[in-house]
């Protein structure tokens, strides 16, 4: 068990090396002038100035030299300060965001995290609940209905579903607007009377005692949450249903029934805990995926998270910015996969005790 965890942790640097190498490979397919954005804010038009920048930051150096500098930063010849270096959190300048990439991440990441945190409960809870109901009523009407409902959800591309709910619940009646916050609330948030403690607007609004802002922020999140939930329910329903069906056929469930345990307890106390194990893995992966930026959903709802920033950077061919996001997301994936695997090992008695 501990050997397994150690092996997994030791593998992380190897994979990270591969990921960064691949990302830098994509970066180096840009021409040196574009890569200058790694170090300078305004890319000069003048060819001579450009040449001196390329020279100064070594953008013509061999691949691995440049890779090393990109990774760890390079010492400036004149000032002696270290510049760049993704290990130091310096991803260069974003053309599409008009500031440093690190600042975009700092500003936008909390918005994504907030949205994801609110989505998790309906997303996983309802999916699992539907799966249990479907399995308990195996092949009855409710089972078929749940399956069709979920296949339909699974077939909706998120951008079609998102626009559809916008059409129904915003264009008609203005109930749930896109964006993150209304203009009037935004003005208050940026003013002196409002203190931002966490950058999660809902939490900050509560701490400031502004329930109107809390309500406004929640209203903006309703449609993205519905979209993310509906298209993911199918996945959880399917996994939960099949693992619940398997659990209900196990000997220990028969034993429990034979002892005269009530059916409700058989389902909730005997079958469900074991059936939930595969769901844990999937939940972890889903959350990691969501944290990496719900690119399309955020774009449709104009939600200022990391996903929509990535999308708009990619559309404007701002490769430096997108690749930083890709790296961040990859890192999140890597760490959460590790957490998921370890949790899985602890949850499953067969793995834990081996």
């Amino acid at each position, binding site marked *: 068990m501990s050997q397994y965890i150690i092996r997994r942790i030791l*593998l992380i640097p*190897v*994979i990270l090396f*591969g*990921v960064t190498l*691949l990302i830098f490979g*994509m970066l180096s*397919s*840009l021409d040196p002038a574009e890569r200058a954005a790694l170090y300078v804010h305004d890319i000069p038009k003048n060819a001579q100035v450009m040449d001196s920048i390329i020279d100064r930051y070594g953008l013509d150096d061999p691949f691995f030299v440049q890779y090393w500098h990109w990774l760890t930063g390079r010492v400036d010849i004149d000032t002696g300060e270290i510049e760049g270096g993704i290990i130091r959190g310096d991803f260069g300048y974003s053309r599409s965001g008009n500031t440093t990439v690190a600042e975009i991440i700092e500003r936008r990441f909390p918005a994504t995290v907030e949205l994801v945190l609110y989505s998790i409960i309906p997303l996983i809870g309802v999916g699992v609940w539907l799966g249990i109901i479907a399995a308990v009523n*195996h*092949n009855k009407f409710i089972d078929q209905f749940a*399956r*069709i409902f979920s*296949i*339909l959800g*699974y*077939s*909706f*591309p*998120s*951008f*079609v579903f998102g*626009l*559809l709910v*916008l*059409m129904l619940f*915003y*264009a*008609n009646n203005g109930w749930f607007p*896109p964006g993150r916050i209304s203009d009037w609330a935004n003005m208050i948030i940026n003013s002196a009377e409002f203190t931002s403690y966490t950058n999660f607007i809902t939490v900050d609004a509560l701490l400031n005692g502004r329930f109107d802002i809390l309500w406004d922020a929640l209203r903006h999140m309703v449609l993205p949450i519905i979209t993310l939930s509906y298209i993911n329910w199918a996945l959880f329903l399917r996994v939960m249903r*099949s693992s619940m*069906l*398997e659990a209900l056929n196990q000997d220990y469930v028969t034993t429990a029934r034979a002892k005269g345990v009530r059916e409700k307890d058989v389902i909730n106390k005997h079958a469900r805990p074991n059936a939930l194990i595969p769901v844990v893995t999937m939940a972890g992966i889903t959350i990691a*995926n969501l944290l*990496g*930026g719900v*690119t*399309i959903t955020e*774009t*449709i709802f104009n939600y200022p998270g990391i*996903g929509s920033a*990535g*999308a708009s950077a*990619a*559309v404007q*061919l*701002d*490769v430096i910015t*997108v*690749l930083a*996001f*890709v790296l961040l*997301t*990859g890192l999140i*994936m*890597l760490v959460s996969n590790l957490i998921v695997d370890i949790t899985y090992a602890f949850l499953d008695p067969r793995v834990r005790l081996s």
Partner: protein
Amino acid sequence: MADLVINDSQVNGLIGEYTERKVSKAEKFLGPEFYRIVHGIFTNPLSIIGFTLIMFFILIAIFAPQIAPPLEGTRDPYKILRDGYSPYPKEPGADWVKKAPELPGWYTTLTGKDHWVHLFGTASGGWDLFYGVIWGTRTAIKVGVLIEGLTLLLGILIGSLAGFYGGWLDTLIMRVTEIFQTFPFILSAMTLSAILTPTIGKGLWPATIALVVFGWMSYARLIRGDILSVRERDYVMAARVVGATDSRIMFQHIIPNAIYPTLVVASLDIGSVVVSFAALSFLGIGTEVGYADWGQLVSFARDWIPQLSKYWWILIYPGMALVLFVLGWNLVGDALRDIMDPRMRGNDA
């Protein structure tokens, strides 16, 4: 002891029952395992609906020039027809203002009109949605088959190298697979197509290449697993003993026997590949403005979000085409998953 004696008639009965099981020609032809899959698919009502949907779209793609004829003398039929440049969308049934294409044979009988109207309305800029949806079906199937085919090829190549040679090559390839799986799919595909677009130009290729590069991993893992089990079979050993070359063993003996699960999974992924491609072009990456593809048609609706209840047709028609197309593949895929799931076996529901 007397209890264990079985008389002749009982034995005959048992044998008789066994020989009487009917094996249809189809089962003989396909083999029991594959027959079970095919039989399961064509007896499940949901997957029959799915198949019908897929066939429907294939027919539309084949007969696109007859259903929505392009203007005479156009060089690129995939360019959506435009009726003027009006910034406001026109509702379904509005008359063509500029030169309309020739009327196809079915038109007057089905609609009762003797001149072209915008059957599905137009988006802003005068793009005819009917033309876009019909020719978009061609794009969807073309792109789906192309991307899926290339992804599968790459996956099989990489996976079989790992599975066949094993050892350090296997470890290396599996690590590389893991590295690629760490990348967020849509974001990385977006990035790569953004990098590729300046070099190879706008069109189907940047998004296609990007989706292939970040999509092969699951097939590689799948085929590797199957090859690992096939590799140990006696007939592979026999081939080795008679001195067959590596490539002969690989292509004649191992791959043909290991490939089916991967092929089945891959063919059913066409639906989701089409969605990924549509998502990229929805975001404005990939094809040029005006190219008939569903993702781009849906993106026309993005300009009108506050007025969508008024201009519903921009979203509903292309959106419906996409959803029904994917639904078709998913219905078949879902049935297949149940059939292939060993836990559901022998349970005829």
